[in-house]
C-alpha cells in the first residue's frame, strides 16, 4: 500500500446553501478550493458507558452508548474575491445579489428583531483523498455553518500578507463513506493582495498617508452549539436512537466584530486623542484584484478601545483596537463581495 500524503486531500463545500440543516448538497451546488492548513474535518462521536451505574455487581463498564456527534472545520486561505464573498455571505447571513456578471453580494448580519432568522445558511463540506477505486477518504459533513472569519493584511511582498481564516461548525451529521460526490474542478481564484488595500478609519486615510503596517478584522457568530441538541433534534441515522444525536439547528449567539490595526506613529497622529474623546466614525477596508473582483468591509461605527505606542522593526508605531458599534441607521457591518461567480449563498 502506498503512503497517503496530505497534499492529496481534496476539499469542496457549498457555494449555494442547503435546503435545510439535514439535506445534503449535491456536487452541482458546491465548489472546490485549495487551502493552507492541514487540519481535517474530523467527526467526533461522544460516547458514555455504564461504569457508574448500580446493579452490575462491579464498577467496570459493560456497555457503551453513542450519545452525540460533532464536526467542525477550519479553512485557511490566501484571500481571494471568491472566498471573500462566500465567507461574508455565509457568516453574516443576509445577502442581496445584484448585477449580471460581475455579481455584487451585499451582506449584512441577520437581525431577528427585524424579522430575520436566527439560523445562518447551511452548507455541506466534503473531503476526499483518492476518490474512486483506491479511495482513502470520502466523507461529507452536512449542515455546517460559518462560525466566523478573520482577515489579516500585512506588509511584505508575498501572498501570505493577505489571508482569511474561516471556521465552520456542524450539526454532526456525516456521510462517512461513498458520498457520491464527484469533486468539482478547482475554482480559479482572483487573489486580493495586500498591495491593493484602501483603508479609511475614523476619518483618516491610512494608505494615502503610507502609514498602515498591518490590520486584522473579522466576525464571530458564537453559535449556540449545545442548543442544537433539543428534544427531537434527530439522530445520525434518522429514526435509529442507537446512532447518536445530531443537532437540529445552529443559531447564532451574541455576535461580535473586531478590527485592529498597526500604523506608523507620526507627528500629528491622532489615535490617542480620539481614544480620549471616544470619537466615532466609519472604518472602510477594501481589497481588490480588478474592477470585477473585490471585497469591501464597512464597519458603520467604530471607536478606539485600546491605543498603544509601540515599535515595528524599530519604527515607532501605534497599535489600535477598535470597538465596532451598532449604528442606529446602517447597522454594524456591511460587506460587499464582487466576483464573476454567480449564485453564492443562493
Amino acid at each position, binding site marked *: 500500500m502506498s503512503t497517503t500524503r496530505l497534499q492529496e486531500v481534496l476539499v469542496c463545500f457549498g457555494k449555494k446553501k442547503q435546503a435545510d440543516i439535514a439535506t445534503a448538497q449535491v456536487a452541482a451546488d458546491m465548489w472546490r478550493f485549495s487551502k493552507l492548513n492541514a487540519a481535517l474535518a474530523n467527526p467526533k462521536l461522544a460516547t458514555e458507558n455504564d461504569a457508574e451505574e448500580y446493579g452490575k455487581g462491579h464498577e467496570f463498564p459493560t456497555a457503551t452508548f453513542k450519545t452525540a456527534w460533532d464536526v467542525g472545520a477550519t479553512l485557511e486561505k490566501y484571500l481571494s474575491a471568491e472566498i471573500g464573498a462566500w465567507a461574508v455571505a455565509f457568516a453574516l447571513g443576509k445577502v*442581496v445579489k445584484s448585477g449580471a456578471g460581475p455579481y455584487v453580494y*451585499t451582506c449584512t448580519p441577520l*437581525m431577528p428583531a427585524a*424579522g430575520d432568522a436566527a439560523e445562518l445558511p447551511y452548507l455541506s463540506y466534503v473531503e476526499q483523498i483518492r476518490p474512486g477505486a483506491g479511495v482513502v477518504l470520502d466523507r461529507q459533513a452536512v449542515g455546517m455553518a460559518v462560525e466566523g472569519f478573520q482577515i489579516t493584511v500585512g506588509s511584505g511582498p508575498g501572498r501570505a500578507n493577505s489571508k482569511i481564516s474561516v471556521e465552520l461548525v456542524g450539526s454532526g451529521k456525516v456521510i462517512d463513506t461513498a458520498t457520491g460526490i464527484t469533486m468539482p474542478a478547482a475554482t480559479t481564484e482572483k487573489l486580493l493582495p495586500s498591495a491593493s488595500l484602501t483603508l479609511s478609519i475614523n476619518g483618516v486615510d491610512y494608505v494615502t498617508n503610507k502609514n498602515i503596517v498591518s490590520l486584522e478584522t473579522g466576525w464571530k457568530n458564537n453559535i449556540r452549539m449545545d442548543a442544537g441538541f433539543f428534544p427531537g433534534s434527530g439522530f445520525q441515522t434518522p429514526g435509529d436512537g442507537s446512532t447518536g444525536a445530531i443537532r437540529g439547528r445552529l443559531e447564532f449567539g451574541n455576535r461580535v466584530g473586531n478590527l485592529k490595526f498597526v500604523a506608523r506613529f507620526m507627528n500629528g497622529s491622532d489615535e490617542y486623542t480620539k481614544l480620549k474623546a471616544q470619537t466615532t466614525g466609519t472604518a472602510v477596508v477594501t481589497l481588490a484584484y480588478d474592477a470585477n473582483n473585490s471585497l*469591501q468591509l*464597512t464597519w458603520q461605527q467604530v471607536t478606539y478601545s485600546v491605543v498603544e505606542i509601540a515599535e515595528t522593526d524599530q519604527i515607532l508605531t501605534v497599535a489600535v483596537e477598535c470597538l465596532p458599534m451598532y449604528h442606529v*441607521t446602517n447597522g454594524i457591518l456591511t460587506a460587499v463581495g464582487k466576483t464573476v461567480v454567480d449564485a453564492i449563498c443562493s
Partner: protein
Amino acid sequence: MNEPTRVWMRPPWGCGEPKEVEATPEILSPLMTAGWSQCEPPATEEEVTTNVHD
C-alpha cells in the same frame, strides 16, 4: 464599482409592498438592517376583461 443596478426588496414581517431600489451599500445597508429582504420582482398582472359578446 460599476454603475449600480437595481433590486427588488420586500419589507420586514411580510407587511407592505415591495419596492425597487438602487443596489448600492449606502441604500441597501439601512434597508437590510431594518429587516428588508431581496425578493423577485412582483408579477405584472394583465387586466382581464370579460368577453360580453359570448
